[in-house]
């Protein structure tokens, strides 16, 4: 079995133990470089705003004969580099005459006439005029205002649902994604249309959703914190990330598949310029969004949290524990809220890559739960699997914790 095959197998059976946090400096460097490139590209090349933002030139052609296909018009425009122009046909209800309207970004005198000459194959040129932006300043201003409110609202929600540190880390990750996606646009020189803004917003939503799922897992695993003497907050986060990894990859794949398909079809039908540009923004964003949930949001969270006194104490204890010869069971003091998490913590503690036995501790927990809050606490029996000495806390305590 190849290394890659083993890795996939581990992933499927959730036996991975990648060091996300310990090696986070690598990701920090990678993200830093990507962000630097993005800013560089933005500064040097800038964004290629489409006609909806900048305004441009409109050619009006009185169509003679049959109405040409949009693709034919696009082909005629391609030599001038404006195949992404807006093309529409307007039919006067009274006279029944059809006008071809082509709108494209600013072109100077000479070229305007050349384009007009090329368009003459479809009819007679009626007018060449300049066009104002449809997405003017006021629309942008409203959009910015909405975006700021969006961040504030989401930030508050995440702070309430989880904690402010997670909220901060999630927002850092989202900004990271937006910067890199915008940077990709600048590098590729793809045209920014209103649909692009939508794509950016989409990425925002996707990235946030992904981060929420990851943090939900981390929150759940907080209960296993300190399961061993050497356990630190970062170790705990790392554990959670390994368990959420297959979910993240699956989600990314299922999101990327439709987007890739749009891109490929877009390239196939050369006409579908708008679609393929749009799909490109989405593709970059979705991939970066998943990356950032695991490699930006989580390490940032770990970094913030390691600075809290109680987690710093854990780290100091951990350093001491490691100094005295590695992993030592701590005993009953570790409370585990969730039996799934318990099993995971145990697997960590016992050894990597050993299929967990159906462990007594977990079953006791499940029974205790089934019996409800008034059930007597089962005495923690040592079980073959729970060498770390973790025992489930009785239900009553757990409930208090949850509130």
């Amino acid at each position: 079995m190849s290394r890659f095959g083993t890795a996939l197998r581990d992933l499927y059976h959730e036996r991975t133990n990648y060091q996300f946090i310990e090696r986070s400096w690598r990701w920090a460097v990678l993200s830093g470089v990507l962000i630097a490139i993005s800013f560089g590209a933005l500064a040097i090349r800038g964004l290629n705003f489409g006609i909806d933002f900048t305004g441009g030139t409109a050619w009006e052609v009185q169509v003679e004969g049959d109405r040409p296909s949009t693709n034919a018009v696009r082909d005629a425009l391609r030599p001038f580099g404006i195949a992404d122009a807006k093309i529409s046909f307007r039919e006067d209800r009274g006279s029944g005459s059809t006008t071809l309207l082509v709108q494209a970004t600013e072109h100077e005198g000479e070229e305007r006439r050349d384009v007009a000459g090329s368009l003459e194959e479809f009819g007679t040129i009626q007018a060449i005029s300049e066009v104002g932006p449809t997405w003017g300043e006021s629309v942008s201003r409203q959009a910015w205002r909405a975006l700021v409110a969006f961040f504030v609202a989401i930030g508050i929600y995440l702070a309430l649902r989880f904690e402010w540190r997670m909220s901060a880390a999630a927002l850092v990750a989202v900004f990271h994604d937006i910067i890199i996606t915008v940077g990709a646009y600048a590098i590729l020189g793809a045209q920014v249309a209103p649909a692009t803004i939508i794509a950016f917003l989409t990425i925002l939503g996707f990235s946030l959703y992904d981060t929420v799922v990851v943090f939900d897992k981390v929150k759940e695993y907080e209960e296993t914190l300190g399961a061993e003497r050497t356990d630190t907050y970062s170790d705990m986060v790392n554990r959670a990330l390994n368990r959420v990894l297959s979910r993240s990859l699956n989600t990314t794949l299922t999101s990327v598949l439709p987007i890739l398909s749009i891109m490929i079809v877009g390239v196939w039908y050369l006409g579908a310029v708008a679609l393929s540009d749009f799909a490109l923004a989405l593709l970059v964003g979705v991939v970066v969004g998943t990356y950032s949930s695991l490699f930006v949001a989580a390490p940032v969270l770990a970094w913030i949290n390691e600075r809290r006194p109680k987690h710093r104490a854990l780290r100091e204890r951990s350093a001491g524990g490691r100094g005295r010869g590695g992993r030592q069971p701590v005993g009953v003091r570790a409370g585990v809220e969730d039996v799934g998490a318990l099993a995971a913590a145990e697997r960590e503690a016992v050894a990597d890559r050993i299929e967990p036995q159906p462990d007594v501790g977990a079953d006791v927990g499940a029974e205790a739960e089934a019996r409800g809050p008034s059930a007597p606490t089962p005495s923690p029996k040592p079980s073959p699997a729970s060498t770390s000495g973790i025992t489930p806390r009785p239900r009553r305590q757990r409930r208090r914790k949850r509130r």
Partner: protein
Amino acid sequence: MRRPGLFLVGTLVVVLGWFGVTLALGNAPILGLDLQGGISVVLVPVDDADTDTLDVAVDIIRNRVDALGVAEPEITRQGGRIIVDLPGVRERDQAAALVGQTAELRFRPVVGCLPAEGDESATTTTTTAAAAEPPTDTTAPEEPTEVPTTPRSDDVVDQPVVLEGLEPCQPADESQGIPELPRYELGPTSGCVPDDLDQCVTGRAVDTARSEFATGQGYLVTVDFTGDGGTAFIERVATPNVNQRVAIVLDGIVQSAPVIQPDVVSGGGGSVQISGDFNESQASDLATVLRFGALPVELETETIQNVSPTLGNDQLRAGIAAGIIGLLLVAGYMLLYYRALALVAIAGLVLTGIWIYAVVAYLGDTIGLTLTLAGATGLIVSIGITVDSYVVYFERLKDEVRTGKTLRSSLQRGFQRSFRTILAGDVAALIGAGVLYWLAIGSVRGFAFFLGIATLLDLIITFFFMHPMTIFLTRSRRLMTARRIGVAAALDRPELEA
């Protein structure tokens, strides 16, 4: 979950029923300008106007059309003309009416109230009108004869006029035998500079207006003025008319006629409140008129044309084909990874899909919602999020099953835990969609609307369908234990029994 079958049947009945009704009524989603085209209204200024003025008009028209619904219009200035492309509008008249309101908002003092045109019985009661509530410090009109309503062409700034109002000038009072007097007798426009009638205080003085609910006072409309506008309003409109009614006139119709309270003048002029017996929609309509009422130029309709889709049929077809291929790939991948369990996800996706279709068709019919490329993208992303809900759930099930629990308790707990996660993610998406919908305009608003709907439906399907369906599926021994493709294999515990 006690009765999974009940939930399952209930969900199916609701969704398929809705879908069936949609098909039976022949409703289909209205496609936006980019996908289906629409009607284009070309407006030209009556007098010459510079491009800056036209750009201001473009903004105002956009706000006005946006405020009417969620259809995404495209409004451009092209040369000296304004082109308004409206999706989902079938009638020329409707299109023209949507963009045709071009007069300016003005303020006129109320001189008196008049009976409806041609209503002779009420002519004698004009004197009572002055004394009656609401307090109008007015003098009764001299002549009790028929006073015609001023036609639009005679609605001149510096002449008195008689106009209809949205609300009667003086409501009827049965107990005192006072009949309703619907028409307003108005003085010359307030706030004009005597030598220069173009310098009147108009809707441009209003920065923004909003309806609010205040305890004890009911619905109010708060009006914020621009700096100069506020000063001009206080000096030239409010001060001369303290304790009198001033009518807010747009398009020859009195929108409202509040009494100017003395503290408006002393208040400085940053903002004022209009109170009255408003209900919620009256207050918000008035606020809309105050915000967007005034166009800086008078425009007239040049032509009304049909407009072809801007994206083109080729792109639409390519997009649909790509979407279908993408979905098939997703289904294939899910089957590969989650074996028999994937059936739940695929069934759920199909169900969510047809429900979204039905809801979008319904909203297209009722509030003119149009589906654009941007909206469709919101939907595609929501497919990602919908699939994600299933992945989160399945992965959670695997976690639970791995700890050695029975299938029954794994399903129960797995659903509880994963639904918390899904809820957290979906609520974040809903908050985002809500904020963008309320604050943004144009295509961003359309996107937010669709993202919101799809997320909400996903949440409902997740709760009422995904879990019951899984329980249902695992009851089949064959599906459960089939080698390699069964649910047990998918959950990474081939020996698991139902």
